[in-house]
């Protein structure tokens, strides 16, 4: 069987084209393609070369319209045993191609050509064409005119014209030779045999029949030559004779042959005018042909030779005619006709395929399947074509040689389209790419459904895998490592769920083996593993946020900062920072990152030698990295690069060097795959099978690259680590800002955000302003003062938890709670060049530097408890009391005591003559849970305005410092703060004024709750002012110091008794001895003691602390050590002179009055004198102070006890 047969094959003259000498393959191909253009030579064109020697046997030669056809066979062909039967099988001419530059010796070339021609005994014309001869060869070759035709060196077109002329000459010579041959055959008659009848016909034929048969065969052959000579009418005439004779003699084989020839003649005659009638005629005739070929089947020699191949060829010819014929005419596109025709063709081809099974020769079968596949392809039955192509490939693979394997590989490559496993290399411009690159990417999967189905027809995975495996096998056998690699890659990537781990390993080693044979740096269009999908585009590291600037607003930063706790605020809608979601801005020269996720769903370790982002525009420098992926794993990695030029940029995928070959992985492909997997159309989702979480559909932002912007880089001077502060610690830090960009910073603005903003005490706005513009490379240092905030209970928990897990110091660092410094800055607002046309659009964006202050607050000194203590130290009665009474009322400078602690001399004093009755202390219990030592210093700030009568004893500072207290680690200590300082000098209504106003009026009009509330507020305010004046500062080590926050604790401690602390009693009492200075006892004894059995004159001093006259009834009592009243009662040991009870006194406001009396102590010892008074006609102020409500209740004032030491006289 022969490939590419058609009905017209019968009228084609076969010319063997042979390379002579050495002809490089590409050159040979080039020359051969030139020949192919001259496959049809019009008869009109050859008349100049044609000379009619005798009367031409081709009487009806159509000189004006007819043509001679050539069929060129490169490399020639061995003679066919069927040459006699079909003359077109003969090689009727031989053309040598000699490429002079590579074949210098023309003589040997001619020799070689002549030798080669000997193999073609049937050749009537022999020519050797020598192309591109040099001058010497031209000279030399001129002598061999007869065989060698030299083509002068010329361009392609000229050469073509030359060749055309040569071909016309050959056509003419052939035509003349045909004439000769026909004339000879007609006269002499030749014996024509086929392998079919060589034995059978010799013995048993009748002579007449044999002669007739011979005549018929001769007529048929003449008809063949007529066809070859381009004279269909003559051919028809001869064929009809031959048909008649063959029918008579029962020579079915030749009958069929003659019939074929006549159909060919019919078509040639009607060239270009095929219509339905003709088509039906051809179909009918050819069915006849097929029938007769079948009839000629002889059982005897079926083993050796069979007309089957002719039958099949005829079938194919008819099928091809029907296929191609249908396309010619428009009216046949209607369904009925087409369906009928294609049905016919399918039937023919199916029969041919069935018949092919009994073909003896494997090559015949190969040719048959190739032809069937081609015809199915022409018909549009791609799948059937693919099926037969696969059969062809299998036949090729049965032959165990490299070329067959290559052929198999190529044939299989053609089937890949039908099976949808084609290599991407063969898909030049898939239509789907355009559809999907657009904004539709974000759409739901609906739109791409059909695409996915067509891309991943998982239902045919069985077939697809078989095909790919066969391609791999044939490629390995053919020694084409790249195809093998690509097939293995496709197999592995698409069908890994269907391949056993062992099979996967096998494919991996196939990939590696193929790669070893490939030069390094080979690219393949088909990606293997891993699967790569886009994970995310990390927005700019917070340090590099980009904010759009609007030229209209000077403070473009306002509103762009995330202010407040809301992620979304309706007010920020439309602000530039919203856009960052869809648009990504990259900056020339600044590195960017893209996160991708890799998956290796296979059972082997995958090593990606290098991978980097692919950007086709070339305006991006990508940094490659290498990754190792263990079996069944996925990994998110960061790919980075630097944009190099301004403009939009797209990242379609990344380039991967894996298994020794460079491939490009498109994100879109994997997206489609995943979409397909989600819909159940694709075998499996590689990421999910690797245990990776489902990723939300990532919208790929449109990325644009903008020109360089300034870039501020910050670091904290002294290290970027967390600043560790104890609660309340105050520290200065310095932040260095450097411009790492290439553009100066011309605008800058600092703002705060985040939690604990108030912990930043001072912000250097001016420092920053003063250094602008900040040139590239310049640096500025901004000082900041921080005060560590108080840890809330939650912070403690977290800190504690951390400490428990980490086991370390318990330092806690919570990003959420740190304050953040926002620095908005921008470069020059316009380029200097186009300053005149400063448009909105080309205002370069500003940037935001988000600088979280990594402050780590450690629990420092903690206040365990605060409470109010009162201390009562009775005073001694003496006479040396130098101070005026009004000064006694202001004991601030002297009444400080700190228990169990050393005190400074000036602060220790307690006036023994005054005592400190009702002295109140604020006791702070502090504990030190840290591992450092704290020193506590308490200072009390006294308001000058309030305490105008305070002795400003030192350097005019109204702040009192107390000695430092040291608290060791893990210890707690108490600090006492005397509160006497705060006592008001005068009890008047100023404190209660509002209270009283309210009270007075509320009883009638206002609601009591309101007044209460008001009172409380007043009270709180006074407590607050009190507290704010007490400061507990601490210091630890050399450079950490801070202030303890005690407000809340103190507040609660003071809540109940603030009135007692702040307000003086309405009356204060004091005793003193009134003696003569000359008294000898006094000088000898202690001056503050009295002698027993002696009269001790005393006076009681009563001071009115209010602004109104107080009338009272004063009484004095004296008690001994046991507390017994010694003045009254039966066993009284003290005698007295003067009035002790019921003394009526009136004390003017802010004055004091005395009352003198004398005591006579009978027994030495300690005695206590107490003065008490009942205030008469008390006013509201007094009543309020005494916390009595009823106006009838007497107000009772009691003074502090005074001690009297009575010495014995002995």
């Amino acid at each position, binding site marked *: 069987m022969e490939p590419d047969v058609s009905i017209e094959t019968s009228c084609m003259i076969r010319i063997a084209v042979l390379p002579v000498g050495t002809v490089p393959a590409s050159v040979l191909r080039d020359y051969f393609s030139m020949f192919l253009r001259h496959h049809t030579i019009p008869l009109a064109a050859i008349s100049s070369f044609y000379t009619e020697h005798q009367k031409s046997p081709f009487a009806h030669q159509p000189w004006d319209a007819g043509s001679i056809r050539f069929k060129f066979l490169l490399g020639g062909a061995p003679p066919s045993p069927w040459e006699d039967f079909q003359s077109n099988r003969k090689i009727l001419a031989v053309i040598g191609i000699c490429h002079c530059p590579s074949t210098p010796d023309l003589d040997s070339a001619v020799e070689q050509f002549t030798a080669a021609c000997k193999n073609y005994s049937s050749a009537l014309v022999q020519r050797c064409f020598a192309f591109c001869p040099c001058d010497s060869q031209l000279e030399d070759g001129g002598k061999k005119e007869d065989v060698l035709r030299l083509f002068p060196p010329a361009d392609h077109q000229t050469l073509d014209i030359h060749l055309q002329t040569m071909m016309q000459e050959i056509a003419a010579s052939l035509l003349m030779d045909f004439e000769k041959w026909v004339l000879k055959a007609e006269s002499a008659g030749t014996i024509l045999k086929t392998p079919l009848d060589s034995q059978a016909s010799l013995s048993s034929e009748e002579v007449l029949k044999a002669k007739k048969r011979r005549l018929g065969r001769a007529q048929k052959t003449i008809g063949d030559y007529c066809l070859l000579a381009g004279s269909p009418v003559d051919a028809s005439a001869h064929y009809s004779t031959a048909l008649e004779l063959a029918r008579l003699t029962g020579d079915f084989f030749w009958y069929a042959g003659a019939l074929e020839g006549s159909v060919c003649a019919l078509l040639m005659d009607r060239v270009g005018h095929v219509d339905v009638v003709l088509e039906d005629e051809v179909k009918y005739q050819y069915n006849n042909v097929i029938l007769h070929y079948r009839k000629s089947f002889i059982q005897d020699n079926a083993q050796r030779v069979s007309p089957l191949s002719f039958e099949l060829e005829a079938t194919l010819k008819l099928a091809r005619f029907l296929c191609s014929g249908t396309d010619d005419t428009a009216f046949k596109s209607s369904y009925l006709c087409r369906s009928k025709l294609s049905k016919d063709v399918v039937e023919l081809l199916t029969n041919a395929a069935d018949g092919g099974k009994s073909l003896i020769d494997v090559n015949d079968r190969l040719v048959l399947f190739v032809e069937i596949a081609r015809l199915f392809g022409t018909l549009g039955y791609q799948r059937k074509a693919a099926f037969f192509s696969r059969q062809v490939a299998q036949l090729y693979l049965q032959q165990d040689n490299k070329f067959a394997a290559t052929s198999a590989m190529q044939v299989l490559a053609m089937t890949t389209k039908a099976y949808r496993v084609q290599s991407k290399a063969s898909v030049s411009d898939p239509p789907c790419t355009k559809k999907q690159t657009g904004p539709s990417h974000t759409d739901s999967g609906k739109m791409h459904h059909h695409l996915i189905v067509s891309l991943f027809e998982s239902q*045919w995975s*069985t077939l697809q895998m078989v095909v790919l495996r066969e391609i791999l096998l044939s490629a390995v056998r053919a020694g084409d490592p790249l195809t093998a690699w690509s097939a293995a890659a496709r197999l592995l990537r698409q069908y890994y769920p269907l391949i056993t781990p062992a099979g996967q390993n096998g494919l991996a080693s196939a990939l590696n083996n193929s790669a070893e044979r490939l030069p390094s740096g080979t690219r393949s269009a088909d990606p293997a593993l891993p699967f790569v999908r886009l994970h995310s585009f990390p927005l700019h590291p917070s340090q590099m946020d980009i904010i759009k600037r609007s030229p209209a607003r000077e403070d473009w930063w306002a509103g762009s900062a995330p202010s407040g706790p809301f992620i979304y605020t309706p007010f920020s809608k439309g602000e530039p920072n919203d856009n960052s979601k869809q648009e990504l801005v990259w900056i020339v020269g600044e590195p960017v990152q893209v996160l991708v996720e890799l998956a290796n769903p296979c059972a082997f370790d995958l090593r990606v030698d290098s991978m980097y982002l692919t950007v086709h525009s070339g305006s991006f420098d990508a940094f490659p990295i290498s990754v190792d992926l263990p079996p069944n794993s996925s990994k998110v990695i960061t790919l980075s690069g630097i944009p190099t030029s301004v403009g939009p940029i797209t990242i379609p995928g990344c380039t991967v060097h894996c298994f020794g070959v460079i491939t490009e992985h498109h994100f879109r492909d994997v997206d489609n795959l995943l979409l397909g997997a989600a819909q159940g159309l694709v075998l499996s989702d590689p990421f999910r099978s690797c245990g990776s979480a489902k990723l939300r559909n990532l919208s790929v932002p449109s990325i644009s690259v903008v020109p360089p912007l300034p870039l501020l880089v910050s670091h904290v001077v002294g290290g970027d680590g967390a600043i560790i502060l104890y609660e309340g610690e105050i520290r200065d830090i310095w932040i260095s800002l450097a411009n790492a960009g290439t553009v100066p910073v011309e605008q800058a603005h600092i703002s705060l955000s985040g939690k604990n903003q108030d912990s930043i005490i001072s912000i250097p706005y001016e420092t920053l302003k003063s250094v602008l513009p900040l040139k590239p490379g310049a640096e500025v240092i901004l000082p900041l003062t921080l005060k560590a905030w108080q840890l809330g209970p939650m912070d403690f928990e977290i800190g504690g938890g951390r400490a428990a897990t980490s086991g370390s110091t318990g330092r806690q660092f919570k990003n959420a709670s740190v304050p953040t410094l926002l620095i908005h800055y921008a470069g020059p607002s316009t380029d200097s060049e186009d300053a005149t046309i400063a448009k909105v659009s080309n205002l370069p964006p500003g940037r935001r530097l988000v600088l979280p202050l990594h402050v780590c607050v450690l629990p420092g000194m903690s206040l365990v408890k605060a409470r109010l203590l009162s201390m009562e130290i009775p005073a001694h009665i003496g006479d040396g009391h130098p101070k005026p009474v009004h000064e006694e009322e202001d004991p601030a400078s002297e009444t400080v005591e700190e228990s169990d602690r050393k005190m400074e001399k000036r602060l220790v004093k307690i006036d023994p003559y005054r005592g400190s009755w009702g002295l109140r202390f604020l006791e702070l219990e502090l504990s030190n849970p840290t591992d450092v030592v704290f020193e506590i210093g308490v200072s009390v700030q006294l308001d000058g305005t309030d305490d105008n009568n305070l002795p400003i004893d030192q350097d005019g500072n109204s702040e009192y410092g107390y000695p430092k207290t040291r608290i060791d680690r893990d210890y707690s200590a108490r600090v006492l703060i005397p509160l006497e300082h705060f006592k008001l000098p005068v009890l008047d209504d100023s404190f209660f004024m509002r209270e009283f106003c309210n009270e007075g009026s509320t009883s009638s009009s206002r609601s009591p709750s309101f007044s209460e509330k008001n009172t409380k507020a007043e009270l709180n305010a006074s407590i607050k002012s009190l507290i704010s004046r007490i400061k507990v500062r601490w210091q630890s080590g050399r450079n950490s110091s801070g202030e303890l926050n005690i407000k809340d604790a103190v507040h609660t401690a003071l809540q109940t008794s603030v009135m007692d602390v702040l307000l003086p009693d309405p009356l204060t009492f004091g005793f003193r001895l009134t003696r003569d200075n000359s008294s000898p006892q006094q000088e000898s004894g202690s001056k503050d003691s009295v002698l027993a059995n002696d009269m001790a004159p005393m006076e009681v001093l009563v001071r009115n602390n209010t602004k109104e006259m107080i009338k009272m009834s004063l009484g004095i009592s004296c008690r001994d050590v046991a507390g017994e009243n010694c003045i009254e009662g039966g066993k009284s040991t003290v005698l007295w002179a003067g009035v002790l009870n019921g003394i009526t006194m009136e004390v003017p406001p802010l004055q004091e009055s005395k009352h003198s009396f004398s005591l006579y102590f009978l027994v030495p010892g300690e005695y206590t004198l107490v003065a008490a008074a009942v205030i008469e006609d008390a006013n509201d102020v007094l009543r309020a102070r005494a916390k009595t409500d009823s106006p009838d209740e007497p107000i009772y004032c009691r003074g502090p006890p005074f001690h009297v030491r009575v010495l014995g006289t002995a």
Partner: protein
Amino acid sequence: MIVCVAVVGHQSFTEADDALKLHHIVHCSLDVVDERVNNPKKSGPTLNETFLGLLYPTENYKVYGYLTNTKVKFILVTTDLDVRDVDVRNFFRRFHAAYVDAVSNPFHVPGKKITSRTFAERVSNIVKSFGLSST
């Protein structure tokens, strides 16, 4: 005997012995189906015809096709050489009903392979009864 029944379209359900070969046959039959789909008959009575008839005979098999309104294709491959069209039509009608019931399962993902056991049983029943009625 019916050797293969396949649902092709968004779905694929195959019941076969010599899987690969039948895969090929069914795959190839789609050429014919495609052709009929792409060149619909304009004539009235055949407008809504779902039965595609004999698609093509191959070696030992006859391939019949059926196309639902939603373009889901049913392919029947049989070794019986004399099959009455009525039987095949009947078969396809019952098979279609079974298919509709199977895909009406709310848990069935359109486009995915049908994994219902009931469907498989029902189909094998239909297949068996086809064998009975035809012989």
